[in-house]
């Protein structure tokens, strides 16, 4: 259904009159998000660096969440997933999410285990 565009973002909070207008709107939003990321990356607020959640700095959580937000709008509006059938959308989105979540979980746990072996084991490697 290529010609029927859904012209609202943020669950209908902002409605656009034409597809072109929506594209520029999304660009502005993505630029703002990137600017926030860069500003945080350069200033590195102390509170966000010191505090951690699930073993990772709050700052890094913010970066990852903002990245996923950006990915959502690129896929939904630039790649027209918003206008596709929900079955196609789900097949495309959930397959990688499921597999990647599993991969990340298993690799990072293993890496943390190896880190502890290096740290507590009787092997000197940092000299």
């Amino acid at each position: 259904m290529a010609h029927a565009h859904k012209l609202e973002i943020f669950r209908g909070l902002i409605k656009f009159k034409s597809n072109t207008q929506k594209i520029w709107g999304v660009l502005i939003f993505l630029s703002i998000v990137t600017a926030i990321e860069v500003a945080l990356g350069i200033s590195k607020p102390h509170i966000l660096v010191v505090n951690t959640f699930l073993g990772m700095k709050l700052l890094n959580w913010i970066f990852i969440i903002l990245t996923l937000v950006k990915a959502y709008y690129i896929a939904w509006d630039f790649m027209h997933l918003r206008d596709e059938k929900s079955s196609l959308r789900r097949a495309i989105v959930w397959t990688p999410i499921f597999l990647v979540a599993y991969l990340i979980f298993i690799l990072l746990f293993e890496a943390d285990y190896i880190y502890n072996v290096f740290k507590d084991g009787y092997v000197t490697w940092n000299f």
Partner: protein
Amino acid sequence: MDSTVATSTEENVWGGGNRPLGASYGKLMMWFFLVSDALTFSGFLASYGFSRFKFIETWPIADEVFTHVPFFHGNFPMYYVAFMTFILIMSSVTMVLAVDAGHKMMKNKAIIYMFLTIIGGAIFVGSQAWEWATFIKGDYGAIETKGGRILQFVKADTGERAALSDFSKTLPSERVDHENKNGVWFYQGESLPSYTVNEVVEGLKSNPNILIRTETINSEGEKTLLTREESLTKIKNAELVVEGANLVRNEYGSRLFADFFFFITGFHGFHVFSGVIINIIIFFNIILGTYERRGHYEMVEKVGLYWHFVDLVWVFVFTFFYLV
């Protein structure tokens, strides 16, 4: 002629006019490819995460590695990468506008937007080449220890990084590059760094203003700075002078860091490069009126999907390589 358009009036499943999931054959195949490509990139990024978590206390800090902007001297962490990100998002926007113009059968508009997209892609690839060149060249130089760890140097009074040339002594020695004309049987030797280990060690000993910085990250999130005494003890382990980066060792820290940098940004850069090539082909097809005759511009949309995907991947590479 065109298999992607349902010409049959019978829309039964076995009649050939069926469009599963409401998408044409070509578009569906492009999505299949993109999903598998997304899994490939995820594999790379997850293995980067693996190595990073493994060496979480000694991993290089990206802010201190990527500090250069072309034509400017000084320390500008991340500005250039942010610029590259913006360029890629911008070219994504012109791509969507080209697709939109294609839907409305506006040939001239589609040509202009495709052209802008190609320019954006070319700027990005050029920027990445420049990033690579800067990364390979290095700027301060470092010492590798017997354990394969990197020692960097800092000026004690200002806290700034010290380049090897700032303090190394020049000692008389007979180091020469092995050249073709000097050997009956010639093997290419490794090119020599600007200073020998001995020259750096002597320079450190005679210059009280220089301290060593190790790879270890302290609780403040910064690299550990050794005292003068510790520095003099540590330098006894010096084994090699490292300048710049290659696949074996690099002056920024963990060897895996440079390996992943070359591999992941290289693979992404290759995607951008091939995307630019495909965009150029489509650009000329539009000019020649191929899609005008075909009656629809779906090809632009399919290539657009690939182009946006490249942008999408960069968003993740940007986060995990430069921000986190």
